[in-house]
């Protein structure tokens, strides 16, 4: 290895180290300042809580309120909504691609539904499906499904026309066109839609839990607000940050693995 190459690799390493250490520093400073301000009563610890309090709360929640049941409920609902959303989105996108006139007919409706704030439908969903897990998953589906359909369908539409023409010159049928060109060509789009979908599902589930629930992180946050225990609210938010980060990173890994194979 030449000296220049070594210097170049070193530079990359130093840069990466710098970025990670500054990130850690920011988080630590934030927590430290929060703790000190709270201890010195410069900010009201009752409203703003403090890192120490949050850790204590999470610990006691785990003992008295079955913390893991809440976490499990939220993650479970998110995964169900994600699975159903992505499969339905994929199937509907294929139908729209195969029946172009149908796609043109429902396009304005899709756009309308997509821009409608789904929370507004919450009360109706509760009345229609009942105040249970079903309505939470319906809420999440409403939020993740339309965007999945639109993303995957657009991926299909972007298939290189020459590839389709080539298969047509081989006299391929519709199913062969889908499985040999349209779907594999949209592979990247489909995988990136997984990432969008998991975030959307979590947003949907928490929104649903805010409206109606007996379990889950969303329930904890709402419960905390009602009894005015901000420690519980803050703990819920911190847990939520961790859950969404882990789910997103999991999708990231999955994406890397799936794209590597191809």
């Amino acid at each position, binding site marked *: 290895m030449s000296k220049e190459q070594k210097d170049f690799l070193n530079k990359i390493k130093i840069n990466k180290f710098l970025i990670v250490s500054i990130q850690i520093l920011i988080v630590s400073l934030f927590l430290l300042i929060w703790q000190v301000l709270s201890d010195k009563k410069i900010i009201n610890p009752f409203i703003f809580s403090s890192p120490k309090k949050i850790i204590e709360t999470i610990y006691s929640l785990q003992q008295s309120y079955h913390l893991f049941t809440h976490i499990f409920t939220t993650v479970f609902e998110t995964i169900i909504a994600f699975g159903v959303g992505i499969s339905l989105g994929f199937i509907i996108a294929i139908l729209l691609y195969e029946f172009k006139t149908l796609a043109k007919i429902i396009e304005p409706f899709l756009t309308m539904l997509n821009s409608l704030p789904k929370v507004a439908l919450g009360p109706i969903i509760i009345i229609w499906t009942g105040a249970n897990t079903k309505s939470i998953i319906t809420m999440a589906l409403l939020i993740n499904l339309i965007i999945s359909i639109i993303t995957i369908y657009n991926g299909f539409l972007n298939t*290189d026309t*020459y*590839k389709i*023409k*080539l*298969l*047509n*010159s*081989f*006299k*391929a049928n519709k199913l*062969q066109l889908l499985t*040999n*060109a349209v779907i*594999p*060509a949209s*592979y990247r789009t489909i995988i990136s839609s997984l990432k969008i979908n998991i975030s959307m599902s979590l947003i949907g589930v928490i929104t649903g839990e805010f409206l109606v629930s007996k379990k889950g992180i969303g329930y904890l946050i709402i419960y905390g607000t009602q009894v005015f225990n901000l420690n519980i609210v803050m703990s819920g938010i911190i847990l939520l940050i961790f859950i969404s980060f882990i789910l997103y990173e999991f999708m990231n890994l999955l994406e890397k693995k799936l794209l590597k194979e*191809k």
Partner: protein
Amino acid sequence: MTKILEIKNLSKKYHTKEGEILSIQNLNIECVKGEFVSLVGSSGCGKSTLLNIIAGLDKQSEGEIVFHTDKAKIGYMFQSDCLFPWLTIYENCLLGLKIEKNITKENEKKVLDLLKKYKLYEFKDKYPNCLSGGMKQRIALIRTLALKPDILLLDEPFNALDYQSRLAISNDVYDIIKKEGQTAIMVTHDISEAVSMSDKVYVLSKRPCSVKKVYKIELENKKDPIHNRKDKRFMEYYDKIWKDLDINV
């Protein structure tokens, strides 16, 4: 000399919102087995439409296309090599056979033989992004030849390449086509490419497209395209076709 394809009085109309467009009018073309035929015309004159009609991807408005073989099979090559990036070179070569549900031991062997013959065997398990533009174009040709087409259609096949590789690849492709005894119809706007590769050149008029003139290319010492470009009679044909095309800049 057996005729393999006759196009008689072919016309094609297009319908758009702005109105009707006559793209091809009374076009007549003949092609003999084993012949390399070029259709030369300015861009947008309806050449590609003509190939689409021959390939059965589009329908003529009037006239007929007669194939003098039992079951005419058409192979089609485009400007872009159109290899599928998610398939290996070998899988790409088998794509047409896969669609026809005709992957047999014999056909697989034929593809492998073609890959060996044209020095692409060692890349068979690689993906297309590892290959140069010229190699990709040769793979695309092997993919088409694997189907044993009666007639090979080439739609400006070297357009995506730079000038140097264009010369080299047209030589390679010509070599493969002649060695395999293929009948080929190539559409191009490059006069020198047409003269250097073909046995017969049809000069097409501007839209609506019809045959303006036919040249049987008889060079003094006919060899491969690069060599043909240096032939004494090459410039003669080039000048004549240039005048026929009546290109106003």
